[in-house]
């Protein structure tokens, strides 16, 4: 047997180019030659951040209700018309945007966009249908909340942002808030927020696509643009750590969600923070995964990232660990966050983080769906067409000193909230004795 002992070096790199961005009359498009499928997304400034307090989940209910028939046809006829094109409507509500999209073979894109617009602009919103969709959505959330994770996530959000703030509540609401959504709330949300023209994102082989006609279909009958939601919210740094316990009797794992408030997406440190979080817990060989999974064997995986939207952000560390090692895993995790804040990153770790993040731009941005998502980032955060090219350069140029500085500035190990969703009867005493922070029960 003979193996080649010497590890090969890289060949000559071919430059990565983000496709040319075409902006025309509210349409933002990218040409991807040879792709069989194309994607179109109507992007609206109508994300969950627009929902009134106590009514979390309106946007998610509306997203489902859009397919319950239109002014022109009932729900069964609508489904058949769209699906016979090979398309399904997909909707997505995040903090900053409400997205309604279709993916279809490129020759069927015009027909699919016409149906997309029909659902977005002229949904039937029959009160009985909306009430049923609302009830179904509440039931679906109850299913989802029976899994480990959603309750821990809600407890973390409430603790770091405050239950009285919209972003201190779950993105899509909880089973109770959704159950409390009224039919009028949904109709009103549509009237207020889905009448704006928005932006039509198109990604695919545009050789025979008439972007003007797609735009005309998407914007027909639309009203005025809406005013912006406002600037970034202030961050109040914490100095005390606390442990929030979410009881899950009989659980064989403890689900961990750790975090604290952090800057918004457009913060000038965005690239540096991304790299610091990658070294901490963003890649397989990052500090957290190496220690907690590869050395200790406590978990199937652990990751850390900054989650950022237009007005706020946070550090989030997520994992699931075997119940018996809950406290040692937390101690190790807090230890790695502290070490990264205090000692910064090393050049070998940063080298991996840098090339991985830069390389991922070319590896990930292959499909019409991924490119449409990148176009959405440009629009939501008001970024220039050469953003992705510059992002790559900025990632590759970041040095050890500046990334370490960002780690020190934006990681706050002393102000962490540690949410543990697990068998409280088994782990409570050890958590209290650990001295990690005051232990409180989640108020959900």
């Amino acid at each position: 047997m003979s193996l080649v002992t010497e590890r090969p070096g890289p060949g000559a790199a071919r430059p990565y180019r983000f496709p040319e961005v075409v902006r025309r009359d509210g349409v933002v498009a990218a040409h991807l030659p040879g792709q069989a499928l194309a994607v179109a997304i109507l992007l609206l400034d109508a994300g969950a951040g627009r929902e009134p307090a106590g009514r979390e989940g309106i946007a998610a209910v509306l997203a489902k209700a859009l397919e319950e028939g239109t002014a022109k046809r009932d729900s069964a006829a609508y489904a058949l018309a769209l699906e016979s094109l090979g398309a399904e409507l997909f909707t997505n509500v995040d903090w900053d945007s409400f997205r309604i999209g279709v993916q279809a073979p490129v020759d069927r894109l015009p027909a699919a966009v016409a149906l997309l617009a029909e659902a977005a602009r002229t949904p039937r919103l029959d009160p009985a249908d909306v009430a049923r969709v609302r009830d179904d959505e509440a039931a679906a959330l109850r299913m989802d909340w029976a899994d480990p994770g959603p309750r821990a996530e809600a407890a973390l959000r409430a603790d770091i942002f405050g239950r009285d703030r919209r972003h201190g509540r779950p993105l899509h609401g909880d089973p109770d808030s959704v159950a409390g959504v009224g039919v009028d709330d949904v109709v009103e949300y549509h009237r207020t927020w889905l009448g704006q023209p928005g932006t039509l994102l198109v990604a695919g082989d545009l050789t025979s696509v008439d972007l003007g006609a797609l735009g005309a279909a998407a914007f027909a009958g639309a009203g005025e643009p809406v005013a912006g939601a406002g600037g970034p919210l202030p961050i109040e740094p914490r100095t005390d750590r606390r442990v929030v316990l979410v009881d899950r009797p009989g659980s064989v794992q403890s689900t961990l969600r750790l975090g604290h408030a952090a800057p918004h997406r457009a913060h000038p440190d965005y690239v540096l923070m991304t790299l610091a979080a990658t070294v901490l817990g963003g890649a397989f060989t990052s500090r957290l995964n190496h220690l907690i999974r590869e050395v200790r064997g406590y978990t199937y995986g652990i990751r850390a990232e900054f989650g950022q939207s237009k007005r706020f952000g946070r550090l989030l560390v997520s994992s699931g660990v075997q119940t018996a090692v809950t406290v040692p895993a937390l101690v190790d995790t807090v230890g790695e966050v502290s070490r990264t804040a205090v000692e910064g990153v090393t050049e070998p770790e940063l080298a991996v983080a840098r090339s991985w993040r830069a390389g991922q731009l070319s590896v990930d941005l292959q499909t019409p769906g991924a490119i449409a998502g990148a176009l959405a980032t440009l629009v939501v955060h008001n970024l220039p067409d050469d953003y992705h090219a510059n992002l790559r350069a900025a990632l590759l140029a970041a040095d050890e000193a500046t990334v370490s500085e960002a780690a020190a500035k934006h990681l706050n190990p002393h102000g962490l909230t540690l949410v543990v969703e697990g068998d409280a009867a088994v782990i409570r005493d050890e958590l209290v004795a650990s001295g990690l922070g005051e232990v409180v029960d989640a108020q959900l």
Partner: protein
Amino acid sequence: MSPTGYPWPIETARLDNGLRVVVSEDRTAPVVAVNIWYDVGSRHEPDGQTGFAHLFEHLMFEGSEHVAKTEHMRLVQGAGGSLNATTNPDRTNYFETVPAEHLELALWLEADRMGGLVPALTQQTLDNQREVVKNERRQRYDNVPYGDAWLRLLPLLYPPGHPYHHATIGSMADLNAADLPTFAAFHTTYYAPNNAVLSVVGDVVPADVFALAEKYFGGLPSRPDIPPAPDGTRPAPPTGPVREDVVGDVPAPRIYLAHRTHAFGSPGYDAVTVLATILGTGRGSRLYQRLADGARLAQPDYVSAYGVDLAHAPAPLIVTATARDGVAAADLEAGLAEVVDGLAGGVGQEELDRAKALLATAWWRQVSTVAGRADVLSRYATQFGDPARAGERLPAWQAVTLDAVAEVAAELHPSRRVTLSYLTEEKPA
């Protein structure tokens, strides 16, 4: 519609040691996908060794003769790449997508663990990854409501001794009993060049890839005595209907109806794929229209029907629904059975056309990335002897007739049905 589902070029070669190499050039983006299928999966595991193929997959990332523990991940991610591996009953696959200039690194890493894993295996690594896999089992199967459905369905569908009888994740007891020599033997037996297919897709020149494959893999010996795979035709499946009722901590009653159908790749399975789409994909599907919308027995987000694409025995078709608030499990089960039984009465041309349109989109989505294409090529080379047969699947779906759908629908007879029902603790049946 394209006459082929694979309109890109395909070139193949076979090294002297039996390694099959498949290259599909596409210069659109400066990236390349590398994908290896080893023709070994959990179906090869003998009694008492369930979960070994999958645990072994973990060990493949823990170092080999010239690669230190965890260095594999660091080198690929440090080159800007994505990587992973999966194990299923049929096979084990390993894959990475990297910027094209790092192709050689990826091939070197794959060759080193194909040819040089055994010297790097240690008790410490085995113990560590055994714990990781046990945590994977807790996270995916044991700690989530209904998480064990697949673990329960397989033994109901396939009798003891059948290669698909047990689930790939394995049992905790078998994992605890795993010893180092067994894994060394597993590698020596199955991780041979003549038991593997290497597919490379993207920004490459085929001749260069063949030369690199020879350089890195050419020195590995073939293994002349790979044991034959276990026979998927025996033992014979149980006759008559089978059912299991589980009372547990679940948020709502849920029913699974399952049938053994045809092996993936056969015309019968193509018809099953179309049938499953008619039944369960989209708001225009029968399950959605009749159970979620019509009779309102089922929660709309939780109705589905799908085939599990296994190639070495009749593959399962799984149909499932979860009860709406206040709906009894028995009513949901009766409603679900009625929809499945109703298929034997025939489906309409409109339903057939809708399913075919959705399947076409699903196919093109799967092959829209170089990684997706590399996986498809490895599959068809491994399971059907020719990667170019990947192009046949989409046309085969498009050619499915109303008669063919009726024929497989008739086979979903209640007398051959497996029923798994989850009942809530508050309201046992």
